[in-house]
């Protein structure tokens, strides 16, 4: 008898989670290299009434369960900034960064140089090249990063010579859906999915990849969530009313 209430409740709980996903997407609408999340739902079947005396098969009750969140790995729009230390990746690649927890991957290419001259992220994590961190010397000027990720500079003493300071490691994954978001614009990969050099990605200097959250989609999603929530509440309400009237009518049975 309580199944209708519980089914409705399962939907409401799933909707709350979905709202949290939408809220996080909208909060990160201006985060460089952010990839939006989507919620996936699944029907969870539970056998209903069980009685051998039923003449037809019993019908199972289906609950809603949120099965997972999917990362939308589509390319975000590129914004030109003109800053030589901004890089965007055109394609499915990720930059490799060295964090205290190990190697992590990011699409947020707003880079800086630290006091040691190394190329780092805004959090101060080293950006790794093919031969470890990429370091600049004090007299370097005119940092250029080509589409293959090679970082070259002009030596201050002899501006006609270009010196290569390393090549950015741009990697891709066989199953990018298995990447896990770690916050700080970083992703981690499971141990059994090694990062392979990306051949199709191109590095764009002087541009940033903006968040790929699509505001209209998120807003419509949000309206859908809050309206469905109210609809389920109405359903629960009428189910409750049904119980109430059933109890009242049963208690009205004459006691003769």
């Amino acid at each position, binding site marked *: 008898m309580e199944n209708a209430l519980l089914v409705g409740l399962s939907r409401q709980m799933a*909707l*709350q*989670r979905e*709202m*949290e996903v939408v*809220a*996080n*997407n*909208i*909060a*990160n*609408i*201006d*985060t*460089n290299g*952010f990839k939006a*999340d989507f919620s996936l739902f699944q029907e969870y079947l539970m056998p209903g009434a069980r009685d051998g005396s039923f003449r037809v098969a019993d019908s199972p009750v289906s609950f809603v369960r949120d*099965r*997972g*969140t999917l990362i939308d790995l589509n390319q975000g729009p590129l914004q030109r*900034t*003109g*800053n*030589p*230390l901004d890089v965007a990746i055109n394609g499915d690649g990720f930059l490799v960064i060295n964090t205290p927890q190990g190697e992590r991957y990011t699409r947020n290419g*707003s880079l*800086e*140089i*630290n*006091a040691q001259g190394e190329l780092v992220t*805004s*959090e101060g994590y080293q950006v790794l090249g093919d031969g470890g961190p990429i370091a600049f010397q*004090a*007299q*370097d*000027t005119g940092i250029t990063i080509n589409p293959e990720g090679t970082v070259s500079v002009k030596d*201050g*003493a002899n501006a006609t010579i270009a010196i290569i300071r390393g090549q950015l490691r741009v990697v891709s994954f066989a*199953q990018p*859906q*298995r990447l*896990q*978001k*770690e*916050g700080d*614009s970083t992703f981690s990969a*499971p141990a059994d999915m090694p990062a392979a050099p990306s051949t199709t990605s191109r590095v764009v200097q002087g541009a940033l990849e903006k968040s790929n959250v699509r*505001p209209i989609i998120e*807003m419509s999603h*949000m309206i859908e*969530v*809050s309206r469905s*929530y*109210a609809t389920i*509440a109405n359903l*629960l*309400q009428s189910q*409750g*009313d049904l119980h*109430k009237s059933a109890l009242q009518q049963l208690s009205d049975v004459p006691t003769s």
Partner: protein
Amino acid sequence: MLALYTAASGMAAQELAVQVISNNIANLSTTGYKRQRAEFQDLLYDHVRQVGTQSSNQGNILPVGIELGLGVKTVGTPRLMTQGNLSSTSNSLDLAVQGDGFFKILMPDGSFGYTRDGSFNLDATGRVVTANGNVVQPGITIPPTATSITINQQGHVSVTIPGSTTPTVLGQINLTRFINEAGLQAIGDNLLVETPASGPPQDGIPMENGYGNIQQGNLEQSNVDAVVEMTNLITAQRSYEMNSKVITATDQMLQTNNNMHT
């Protein structure tokens, strides 16, 4: 519901973005000003269902997990050290740096400040000082009788003394570079100071070893681009609005809960 706090973090971030943008626009015509931008990153995630865990005894692996993000944070407001346009003033003590390097300024407390604002003047004793009266390093004193101050691209300051046919070189203005210019700290008055993030200052001679050159009679304008700032302002304002809508929607969901009295 966590969505309330997630959206609140989004509103706080956009508010900060508007503050950074407003400071850029306010300094649209500040000599030597370098624009800043707000950098955001996603906050930590609540991994409700871990991706890649085993979902059955047959070794099936969950292809996706449930990750609930908890919002956004501001990670920094880096200064973009791109070259500003030069505007000609034909004032002999207006200097602009084209390329890398800062003018070094002696502060009243004995420490050094660094600036790209080269609108210099002479003080009562003939020293080259900033608009605030702090001495430009290395100190150069112009004799009171001197006429026609010339500063070449390498920073040599030469003047003509009456009675002499050849110009006298009084000194050379140096420039200072940092390995991480974005790591300098702004202290107002167009001055930046050294921090552990910027690395130690490296003094050098203009036009040598990657130092920029000095342009007399020019000032470096702010590198703020009004169109870019206005676009960013619109984006920030709309994002702020959208986050507030999330709060409204979440509030309505909670209200729905409260209205249920079965």
